[in-house]
C-alpha cells in the first residue's frame, strides 16, 4: 500500500493538540473563576485573552511551519 500526501498536514494536526487543550483549560478555568466571583469578571476576561494569546501562538507557529516546510 502506498500513502501519498503531505506530511505537513499531519504535523500541523499534531501541533494543534497542545494549544487546543491549553485554550480549553484557560477558558474553562476563567468561567469557573467568574462563576465564583462575578464581580471580578472584567479583570478575569482581560487576563483570559492574554493567556489565550500566548497559548494560541504555539498553534499558529504550527501553521507557519506548514507553509515553510
Amino acid at each position, binding site marked *: 500500500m502506498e500513502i501519498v500526501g503531505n506530511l505537513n498536514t499531519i504535523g500541523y494536526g499534531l501541533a494543534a493538540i497542545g494549544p487546543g487543550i491549553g485554550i480549553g483549560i484557560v477558558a474553562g478555568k476563567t468561567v469557573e473563576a467568574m462563576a465564583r466571583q462575578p464581580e471580578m469578571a472584567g*479583570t478575569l476576561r482581560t487576563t483570559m*485573552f*492574554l493567556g489565550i*494569546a500566548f497559548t494560541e*501562538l504555539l498553534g*499558529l507557529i504550527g*501553521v507557519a511551519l506548514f507553509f515553510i516546510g
Partner: protein
Amino acid sequence: MNRIVLVKLLATAVLLLLFWLGLRRASLVPGRGQNIVEVALGFVKTQFADEVLGEKIGRRYLPVLASMFFGILALNITGIIPLLNISPNAIFITPFLFAILAYVTFIYAGFKEVGPGKFFKNSLFPSGVPAPIYIILTPIELINIFLVRPLSLALRLTLNMIVGHLLLVLCFGATHFFFLQADGLDKLFGIPTLIGGIVFTLFELLVAVLQAYVFTLLTAAYIEQSVSEEH
C-alpha cells in the same frame, strides 16, 4: 502598487475619514457622530489604558494604543469586505510594522518612566530569585523580551489573517466548484459549503476585532511590565 497596498491605502483613508467626520466639530455636548467616536475611544481608554496601565501612565500612552487598535482593526476588517477580500495584515510586513511600534513604545516607556538602568535590571534580573538562577534566567529573558515579543506579536496577527483568508477561499472555492462544475446531485454539496463560508465570514469578523484587541492588550501589558517598579 499591488492590490494589498491599494486596500491598505483605502482602509487608512476610510478610517481617517470616519474620525474626521466624527470629530470635525467637536463640542462639549456631542452630536451623533461624535458620540460614536467617543464610545470607541472610551472603550480603548477603559479596556487598555485604565485597566492595564492605570490612570496616570495610561493617559500618556492612550494615543499610541488607540491608533494601534483602530489601525489594526481597520486593516483586519478589509479581509471580509466584499471586493476587497484581503487583509493587508496577511503579509508579514504590515503587522511587523505595528510590532516595531509596540517594541519602540515599551522600551521608550521603560527608559522614560523608570530610567534605563532600572528598566534593564527589572527586565533581565528580576528580583526575588536566588543568584545562580540568573545564569539561565537572564539569557532567556533577554531573548524573550527583545526578540520573541515583537516577532510573536507580528506572527500572531499575520497567521490569523492568512488562516482566515485560506478558510474563506476554501469554502467559497468549493461552493463555486460544486455549483458550476459538478454534475447531477453533487451540486447539492454546494449548499453546506456556502453556509460554511457565510459562517466563517462572521467568524472572521470576530477574529478581526479579537486580534486587534489582543495585539493592543499585549502592547499595554508589555508597557506595564516596563514601567513597573518591581516585578
